[in-house]
């Protein structure tokens, strides 16, 4: 049973003289206890999906979806207070660009304490309550790997390094003990040791607390090592989605194959000093999206049929949208 279930999410931005489809029929689901990776180049709409789920898109952008539900409740039609309650307790988000997502005029510790749900706090008097808030904040800081809590709890975001702010962001997300964690590029700008630390924390929380994680990243190595399933996004369209090991072993969509081929760590037979295989061209801008399959102009297997959008096809729990998929002969 999928906790978060999104089908055909479309996001239209009205620029004044034209309507741009930033997301075109994106489908995504996260099962309980699962780590789902959302992969795509920068500009493919990953962060837009994150914002759409958290409900913080500007009101003038139009979101439509056949289904966008949290545990069976429709996220798009529920009341503001219900939606807020879901965001407060069940879903937590780690945003990209931690420095921008932190209030620059409040100390980091105070912001962390603010995210602790009131239900966790016991005590009749306000000083008991604030003491307890402080205690929970410090233990959460230790959990995400901030050891010198005395040094950072009163610091302002601009005074500390970016990876500490990022860890605070993660701590703020985890402190409400959510059921789903949406992590938008959580290890960006971190050094490798801190990165492993954070990823290990995610894996451990997933195993011990059955925390579902939607892991948005382009770090294929990290994704391959920890996530159970993957959704690949290209220019606002879902390209392929399925279990991690199936996708790695036998990608059906040419884009998924190109993406995996471009990561040297997945290639054992790569001769030294050879150039990495990449697709020609670059990701199209939002104003000039090709019609039909948006990969069309760059796709090595493209044919005339590709000007019409391919329907989503399914083999067991592996879905793809391509007219001319790879590896079909083996199936």
């Amino acid at each position, binding site marked *: 049973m999928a906790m978060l279930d999104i089908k055909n999410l479309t996001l239209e931005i009205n620029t004044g003289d034209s309507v741009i489809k930033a997301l075109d029929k994106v489908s995504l689901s996260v099962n309980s206890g699962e780590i789902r990776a959302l992969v795509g180049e920068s500009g493919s709409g990953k962060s837009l999906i994150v914002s759409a789920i958290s409900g*913080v898109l500007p009101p003038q952008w139009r979101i439509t979806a056949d289904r966008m539900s949290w545990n069976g409740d429709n996220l798009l039609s529920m009341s503001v207070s219900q939606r807020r309650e879901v*965001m407060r307790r069940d879903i937590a*988000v780690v945003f990209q660009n931690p420095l921008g997502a932190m209030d*620059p*005029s409040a100390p980091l510790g105070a912001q962390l304490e603010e*995210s602790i749900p009131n239900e966790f706090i016991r005590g009749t008097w306000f000083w008991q309550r604030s003491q307890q808030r402080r205690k929970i904040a410090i233990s959460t800081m230790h959990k995400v790997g901030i050891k010198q809590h005395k040094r950072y709890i009163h610091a302002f975001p601009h005074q500390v390094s970016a990876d500490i702010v990022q860890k605070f962001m993660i701590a703020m997300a985890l402190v409400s003990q959510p059921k789903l964690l949406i992590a938008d590029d959580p290890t960006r700008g971190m050094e490798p040791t801190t990165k492993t630390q954070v990823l290990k924390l995610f894996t451990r929380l997933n195993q011990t607390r059955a925390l579902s994680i939607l892991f948005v990243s382009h770090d294929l190595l990290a994704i391959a090592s920890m996530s159970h399933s993957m959704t690949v996004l290209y220019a606002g369209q879902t390209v392929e989605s399925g279990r991690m090991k199936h996708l790695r072993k036998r990608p059906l969509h040419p884009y998924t194959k190109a993406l995996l081929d471009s990561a040297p760590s997945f290639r054992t037979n790569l001769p030294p000093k050879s150039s990495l295989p990449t697709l020609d061209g670059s990701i199209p801008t939002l104003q000039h999206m090709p019609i039909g399959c948006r990969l069309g102009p760059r796709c090595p297997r493209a044919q005339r049929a590709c000007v019409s959008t391919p329907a989503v096809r399914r083999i067991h729990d592996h879905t793809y949208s391509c007219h001319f998929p790879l590896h079909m002969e083996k199936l």
Partner: protein
Amino acid sequence: MIRILVRYSVLFVLTLLVLTALSFVLAYLFPGDVLVNLSGITPENEVQRDALVRQYRLDQSYLIQFWHYLQQLMNGNWGYSFTSGLPLREEVGLALPATIEISTYAMLMALFIGLPVGYYAGIRSYSLSDRTINSVSLISYSVPVFWLALVLILFFSLELGVAPLSGRISLMFDIPSVTGFILIDILLSEHIDHGLALRDALHHLLLPTLAIGTITTAAMIRITRRSVIDVLQKPYIAAARARGLSRPQIFVRHVMRNASLPILPLMAIQITTLITNAMIVETLFSWPGIGNWLIQAIYQRDYPALRIGMLAVSTLVISLTILVDMFNRMLDPGRERFERGAI
């Protein structure tokens, strides 16, 4: 903290030094005798003239003259007015507090009306109420202050007769000047009916404050609204919403503080406009402030008065600007400690 204080004091002293130098140079640039411009006394014979030249060190080099001028300013010997023959220090001491008083009330009006209205308009941005507030504030911001004051006089004093036409207080009350602020002086004075005097003074204050305050309030509303709209679009507000905080929580904890920080330096810029407006309005209401006094000095070609008046007004403006900037520096955690002070 101490370093910041030291930095700002150095900045303050240096700026004042430049201003005094300018006012000293004015004595040479104004038409007429330098000695007369500097002292305000017209010597009647050669003996008196020689004595004055020696007193002001005019027979020595410019630097020594300036140094002496500085000492004289420090000691309170600011020269004499041509027209009244009174010491300028006394005249400025009477006029400047009157201007400060009226500007303070206008500023208070801007704070107590402009800030809340601006916050409201910012939160309800681009709604009908916001557009109404915005257009009203734009109109009142663009109205020339002397025209507004004249309209107020025409309507409230001449048509309705609810407010007195000019002056600071009715002539029936004899209030000795202690602090220079009329409301405080009334409370300090003896042998008068405090209630009646206060009511009369407030009646006199009403129209000038309204005229100056309207424009400052409009500026305040516009600055606040813009600042709130800017903050609402910041990613940390989106992040706070994604954390499930309610609207009032977001407003009190994140919007208010972040929106107030840029308002303070912008208000510092408005101080100049405020005092200029106050000086214009004073002449219309015959308010015995520094603006009225300076206009009289210009009419009478009272050069020593002009020299000191310019120094007094600019010192006031600069002290306020530096003070506000210093407060902002101390309140805003985002500003770096090594950032330089600026006017």
